[in-house]
């Protein structure tokens, strides 16, 4: 693994931090391109993106309490530790939920009727794909469970090969970016549907990839992240179920 990517005049550049920053920059660039293409005014883009960023960072951190247990509370619930770069940002699942809530509150606060948030969908996939490369290079969470598969990789501290789980995540998100990109102008993928589809797809994939990750089992053999994925998928099903019911009732009237 390569925790230190390179050095500049003896100053180490860490893989995790570097790719995290690159992920945010790539995601922001894609968001700006998409929002410009969608004629989304900057008076809406700026507050919603800011709220999604702050909400995402808070969500990523707070969700650790649920995923890793009460032992993390002194760090996770400490507001000022949020700005400590020596502590990892937290969980991407919590980040997605937090960003969604933050963006939703901001869009309601500025009195936005429709939803232009679909611009976030490809940006989210691209950012996750880039960020996961850093997780792989830093061997975060010991990468994955032991494997005898030919693409197993060595991990620090163990003498067996493990699943390169962050790379699975990166590969999926790259492919998912292609799908979201192809669907971005589809009439049924507007008004928030592309973002919901993007989040749903990632939650579905993440549920399965969790089986080869080292995350802590919460209950019934499933990790906290898997429960969060189930929660997200159920929330989407309920949302679309209600929407479908409303559509059916207006059709009969």
């Amino acid at each position, binding site marked *: 693994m390569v*925790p230190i990517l390179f050095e500049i005049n003896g*100053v*180490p*550049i*860490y893989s*995790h*931090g*570097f790719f*995290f*920053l690159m992920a*945010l920059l790539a995601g922001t660039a894609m968001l700006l391109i998409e929002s410009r293409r969608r004629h989304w005014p900057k008076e809406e883009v*700026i*507050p919603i993106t*800011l*709220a999604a*960023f*702050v909400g995402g*960072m*808070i969500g990523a951190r707070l969700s*650790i309490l649920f*995923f*890793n*247990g009460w*032992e*993390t*509370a*002194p*760090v*996770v*619930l*400490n*507001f*000022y*530790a*949020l*700005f*400590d*770069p*020596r*502590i*990892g*940002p*937290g*969980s991407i699942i919590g980040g997605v939920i937090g960003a969604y809530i933050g963006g939703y*509150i*901001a869009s309601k*606060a*500025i009195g936005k009727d429709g939803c232009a948030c679909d611009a976030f969908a490809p940006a989210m996939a691209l950012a996750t794909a880039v960020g996961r490369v850093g997780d792989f290079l*830093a061997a*975060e*969470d*010991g990468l994955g469970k032991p494997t005898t598969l030919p693409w197993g990789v060595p991990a620090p501290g163990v003498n067996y090969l493990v699943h390169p789980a962050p790379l699975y995540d990166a590969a999926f998100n790259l492919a998912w970016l292609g799908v979201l990109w192809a669907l971005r102008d589809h009439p049924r993928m507007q008004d928030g549907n592309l973002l919901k589809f993007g989040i749903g797809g990632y939650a579905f994939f993440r549920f399965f990839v969790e089986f080869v990750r*080292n*995350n*802590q089992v919460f209950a019934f053999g499933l990790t906290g992240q898997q429960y969060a994925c189930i929660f997200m998928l159920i929330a989407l099903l309920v949302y679309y179920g209600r929407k479908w019911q409303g559509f059916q009732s207006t059709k009969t009237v």
Partner: protein
Amino acid sequence: MSDELPEPIVEKPDETPIMKKPDLDQGDKKKKRKDFWLGVGLWFALNIVVGVCLWGVQFVVIGATSSMSGTNSTLTNLVTLFSVIIGFIPFVVNIGLMIYFVVKKRPQIALGMLAGFGFVLGVAICVGVFLMATCFAMLGSYK
């Protein structure tokens, strides 16, 4: 009296309509800008003051209890719980204040606070490039 009729409005077919932004008068713009920077300043001032106060309280409480507790685990747990609650207060204050300003129809102050928050988070992420980050698996009960 004039017999002239007002000129009929004729639509010119080759002129595409242009969406005009609502005209904000100079005073409105100025007020918005002032509110925004007030929000940024408020965020920094608030968090510095709250941070110093909480640090002081924590320092006094931990100092007082460590001198009398020895190895009293109940007291240690209570102090930990107290520290956790103290550390969480700024979350409530920050988010609560932003919602308060939105409800009070001063969203630019909330946006300024959000910008301050986002700016410091951004700086922390940039600094993180030069520092080794600890993952939570190490902080929690990771097996």
